[in-house]
């Protein structure tokens, strides 16, 4: 339960962090708040040769609302986003989901981008990014690019980030007010057994589910009610390929998807 040895690099400029990633690639890992990575290091599930600390880079610690989007830099801690005065208006879904993201004692250190980089299938922030159709801003010494959430999450704790790329920021469409969030976990703040977000899209609803498949999965539903709605939700629940694990059975997860899905649909369509 102690990390294997690594070099620790504290970058003073983004270019320095990119340089280390360009030279060392897969042997280097970026550490921000460390609330996911440190546990991986302690359990030796990750054994990087170099750790690059990006938390002393002021240019990454910004939250900006511009041109209809909220951009959250890689150094922004979850607690800082939760305390951002514009959050409820600009990013209501994040305001609903952040209190479920870890505990106060981990949100104080953990970053928004770090949780998205870690890509745990039951984490709330990847779910929010997917539900809102946000983007991940990647930067390497070679180039910059933006990847849509639906193309970023590739599998359980796997993303399409290249080894020399740094997640510089993530951005979310701003001002989506008609949304809802619900989660079931063994203990408030633990990883979700099922987490679900609903966002109003035109006449219908987009439901996004975390904790069931390997990545957060979104599906758009037309405005439905009664048995048509229940059938559509049942089909969605089965398509998620739920598995049994120590926390819950696949059957229980499907039932949560059906029930929470129905509640959130009603809430958002009201």
């Amino acid at each position: 339960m102690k990390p294997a040895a690594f070099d620790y690099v504290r970058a003073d400029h983004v270019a320095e962090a990119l340089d280390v990633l360009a030279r060392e690639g897969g042997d280097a890992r970026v550490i921000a708040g460390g609330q996911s990575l440190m546990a991986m290091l302690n359990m030796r599930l990750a054994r990087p040769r170099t750790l690059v600390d990006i938390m002393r880079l002021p240019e990454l610690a910004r939250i900006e609302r511009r041109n209809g989007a909220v951009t959250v830099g890689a150094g922004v801690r979850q607690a800082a986003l939760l305390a951002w005065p514009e959050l409820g208006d600009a990013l209501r879904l994040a305001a609903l989901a952040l209190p479920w993201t870890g505990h106060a004692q981990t949100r104080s250190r953990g970053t928004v981008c770090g949780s998205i980089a870690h890509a745990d299938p039951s984490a709330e922030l990847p779910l929010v990014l997917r539900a809102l159709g946000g983007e991940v801003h990647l930067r390497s010494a070679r180039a910059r690019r933006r990847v849509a959430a639906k193309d970023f999450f590739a599998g359980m704790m796997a993303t399409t980030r290249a080894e020399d790329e740094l997640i510089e920021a993530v951005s979310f469409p701003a001002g989506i007010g008609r949304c809802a969030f619900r989660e079931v976990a063994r203990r408030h703040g633990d990883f979700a057994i099922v987490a679900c977000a609903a966002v109003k899209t035109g006449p219908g609803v987009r439901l996004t589910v975390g904790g069931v498949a390997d990545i957060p999965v979104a599906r758009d539903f037309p405005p439905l009610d009664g048995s048509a709605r229940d059938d559509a939700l049942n089909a969605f629940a089965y398509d998620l390929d739920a598995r049994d694990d120590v926390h819950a059975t696949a059957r229980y997860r499907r039932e949560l998807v059906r029930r929470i899905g129905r509640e959130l649909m009603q809430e958002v369509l009201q």
Partner: protein
Amino acid sequence: MIRREAGRRHAVNFVLNGRPCAGEAEPRLLLSDFLRHEIGMTGTHVGCEHGVCGACTVTIDGAPARACLTLAVQVDGCEIHTVEGLAPAPDRLGVLQDAFRRNYALQCGFCSAGILMSLDSFLRIHPAPDEAAIRDLLGGHLCRCTGYAPIVRAALEAAEELAREARGDLTHA
């Protein structure tokens, strides 16, 4: 850019419970182990070492944090508070500690150091919390002895007492 090589010990300078403190740490050394083994402050307990149990909670620059999910080299220049800093004098308990004692809010005491540090930083920012807020905060800790009810009671009592102190109301004393 600073590069701290693996396998070597590097100087870490920080402020511990209000006093300047220095030690040496390999890059991979956890803050929890640094405090206990290098600095000799064993009040911070180590339970799960992956951020779940909360026993190792300290405050870093005023905010609660898991010492087991923090590297010693990361806190260079930071202000750390541990449970050793809560008592005003070696023979006196702090307000929160005394409320824990009165309410039997601990039995084995393993989780107490972390819980006290979470509550201490929380009550500084939220001087009049309701029970739901305390329970939400305690969600970040595991206690296997008390069933939490006495801890909640102690926290609410301490909050009241701290509020009275802040008002300068000494009639209770």
